[in-house]
């Protein structure tokens, strides 16, 4: 991959490295990139009680740039009614520049309508002809279940301000506040206010429509930079296949595919 393209890619996200801020889960992308409300997003407090174990796997080729392959794997395991763990890993890049992230998180639903979570991320960066760099990031989140329809969540990402590249490059510290409103069994509305501590706010909105019993449609929009996204999910037995698309103002669209597998 040409370095100029890589630089363009990095600048397009307004960050030093793409770690974590680039969502790879196709369902999250279809829903406007909202990362604080999805069990496979960045918020460790998000609780999934529907299934005992959930797996996810996603792939994308960012902006269609040659060799820029991205993979994302995750497992969400409900230990019991109140505790769950999340294990995630993703990989972005090629032989020249490669980022790997491994993440383990734990969430605990309290006796009040609140769940809290904490996660530890391991960041690994390898650039050809340079030493491999590593760093650890600590994230925490809270979910407030206001009633059966409305959930709010706050996410504090990389609160320990991890640094990489010989402690010279700061990985992004970020905050997100999300609201999920399940209007009825067919329609869900999501919104998120996202802030990298050093940059302006991003607003994100997403909708999820259960059109038929096994088909879901997603649409989403993000501001600053403005992007539109959408997707479709088809569920067959315990497997859900998702395909989504995200636009970019300057670069080509990015297509995402993924699947989720559930065990009751």
């Amino acid at each position, binding site marked *: 991959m040409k370095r100029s393209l890589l630089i363009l890619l990095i600048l397009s996200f307004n960050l030093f490295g793409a770690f974590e801020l680039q969502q790879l889960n196709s369902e999250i992308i279809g829903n406007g990139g909202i990362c604080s409300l999805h069990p496979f997003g960045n918020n460790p407090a998000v609780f999934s009680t529907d299934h005992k174990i959930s797996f996810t796997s996603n792939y994308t080729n960012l902006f269609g740039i040659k060799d820029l392959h991205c993979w994302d794997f995750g497992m969400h395991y409900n230990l019991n009614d109140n505790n769950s763990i999340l294990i995630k890993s993703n990989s972005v890049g090629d032989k020249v520049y490669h980022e790997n992230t491994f993440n383990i998180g734990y969430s605990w639903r309290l006796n*009040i*309508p*609140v769940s809290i979570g904490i996660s530890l991320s391991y960041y690994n960066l390898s650039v050809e002809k340079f030493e491999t760099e590593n760093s650890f990031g600590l994230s925490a989140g809270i979910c*407030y279940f*206001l009633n059966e329809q409305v959930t*709010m969540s*706050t996410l*504090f990402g990389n609160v320990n301000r991890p640094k990489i590249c010989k402690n010279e490059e*700061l990985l992004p510290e970020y*905050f997100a*506040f999300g609201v999920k409103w399940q209007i009825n069994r067919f329609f869900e509305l999501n919104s998120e*206010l996202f*802030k990298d*501590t*050093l*940059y*302006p*706010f991003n607003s994100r909105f997403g909708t999820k429509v259960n059109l038929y019993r096994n088909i879901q449609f997603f649409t989403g929009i993000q501001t600053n930079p403005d992007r539109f996204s959408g997707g479709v999910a088809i569920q067959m037995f315990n497997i859900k296949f998702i395909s989504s698309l995200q636009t970019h103002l300057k670069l080509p669209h990015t297509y995402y595919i993924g699947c989720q597998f559930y065990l009751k």
Partner: protein
Amino acid sequence: MVFRPSEWLKLLSFQNTPFQRPFDHLKGVVGIIILFCNMNLSAININQLIEDGYIVINNENEQEYEEILTNFVDNPIVWTVTNSSQLEQLPINDFLKNSLIHFLKSMREISDWESFQTKSGFSEIEMETIQLFITFEDKKYLSGKVYNFNSLQDEDELAINKNLIRLKMDTPTGWNIGGIIERDQDEIHVFDHFNFSIQSPLLFDRLKINLGSFRFKWGTGLFFNTNPMNMISNSGSGNFYNVGAKIQGYSGSDENNHFLGGSISYQSKVASIFTFYSMNNMDCNIEDGIVTSADYSGYHVSENDLKNHNKLKNISTGIGSSFHIKELQIGMLVYNSNFNYQLEDFYRKNSLSGSSMFHNYQYRDIYFKGEIAYSFNQKYAMVQSIFYRSSRIQTGCNFRYFQPEFQSFSGSTIRHFSSSLENEKGFYYYMGVRINQSTKLTLFSDIYSRIIPSEKGSGIDKGTYSGIYLKRNLKSKSYLEFKLSRKNDLLSVKNSYAVKLKHRLVRNLDLINRYYFTEIFDTNNNSQGFSSYISSKIREHSFSVGTTHHFSNSSTCNLYVYEPGIPLRYNMVTLSGTGRNYFTNYSCQINKQTEIFLSVKQTSKSQQDKYFLQLQLLVAL
């Protein structure tokens, strides 16, 4: 930046540190005054009531906040002998004030809280607010309070941010005694600011005397006001404020805006006559022997601050009277102020004088208020307003006219242009409606302009400022608020939006979210802020913990955001640039006499971190 809690603890426990000296002095003072000790404490509740908008202070100013609140709390109004004009001055929201004034008309004879609540139908939280400011018995006993506030800051090195000790005492015979010692960040002198005040009861049923520091409040504030801030009040009725004639002992932390001397007033049933003399030193900026501007900041850190500290001597005298005839109150005043330097803003004069007349008249639910002031350079200013209150609606309008070259040194009232009261006229309209039991709507609009161009050859500046505020109560003490304001002064259009949601998660645990957005058209400047925190009160303990994130691309778009903090302190923070704050507060009522407050905060702006530790001790004597 290194977090060093051990050093903070050392400071608080007065151990040997490079900062030992200032605290060493204070240690003795704290030790002595805590020995005294019978007054109800309520600071923990106050924070919650401010947060929920039941307590509203007009034209908030950092120096005034504590003084205004404690004055009302320490001197509660006696229900059986009060009147609507006293209730009007309470720092509570307009809707509650309306209900209270209407309830007074029919239920003055009530003498216990149980029947008060049953007959009025006030909610629990409204009762809490009312009980802070109203009492049924005018019993006098020896009582007092000590506020001890310390704030430490750790940026590049640990430093004292502020410390303040304030004492207020009331004797059974009605004497009020107060005093304060205060030091701001980086100030060299431990007692950088101190004052004391003594206020007598009504002697021989006729005379009242004030000695030491005092505040003189007059009419709508054309000549004398206490607050240098002049913007439109958040409280609609606050813009129709007419305090009448009030001389009150002052023990606040404002180093400049008070008088120092004495006053005496003679009071009868229908009239009172008073006179005052003050000789106080003020801060100012001096260039070539001329005062270019007054300096109200109270910070004396730089060489320039120290040089200009107490440089301007203000000798003020005044005599006035006020008359009460049924629902009509009229007051007249003549004053003179002499300064030891010429004042640039007042055509290099060193003497200002003037006369003023105010009126307050109530006809049923309609209030007529106003003041006309005449400065002795033959210029005048006036504020006239009409206001209507019913149990569901309050509405009113206000006309102001400040003639060019009108001279007022300490005047302050609603205005938009310039720092002194001159060359402006405006019309302000306000309406508040209780749409139903759970929804309240407030609207205001202000149209203003200069009377003559500020510079020769230029056009006349003018503009409009308007806003809308909606509050809807939800289930179980939750509510949603929406605010929108728009200011258009021809040069730019500024829109500000604010949304607040308070949701009760479970009993005693609330989630509060706030979002702010401001944009200035033409310049493309904007700012956003988001604050989220949880707040809880369990028995005598209360805590809050949360975060604020903000972004602003211009200093013209700074955000002013409420963050919970130490009660009775000013908890509006100014946010500029990009960054975030984390904060946590803890309060505990140790016993009937003592409350303790602890606040820890970390701010980060453009990767620059600051830590704050604040500690306040409130002891009832």
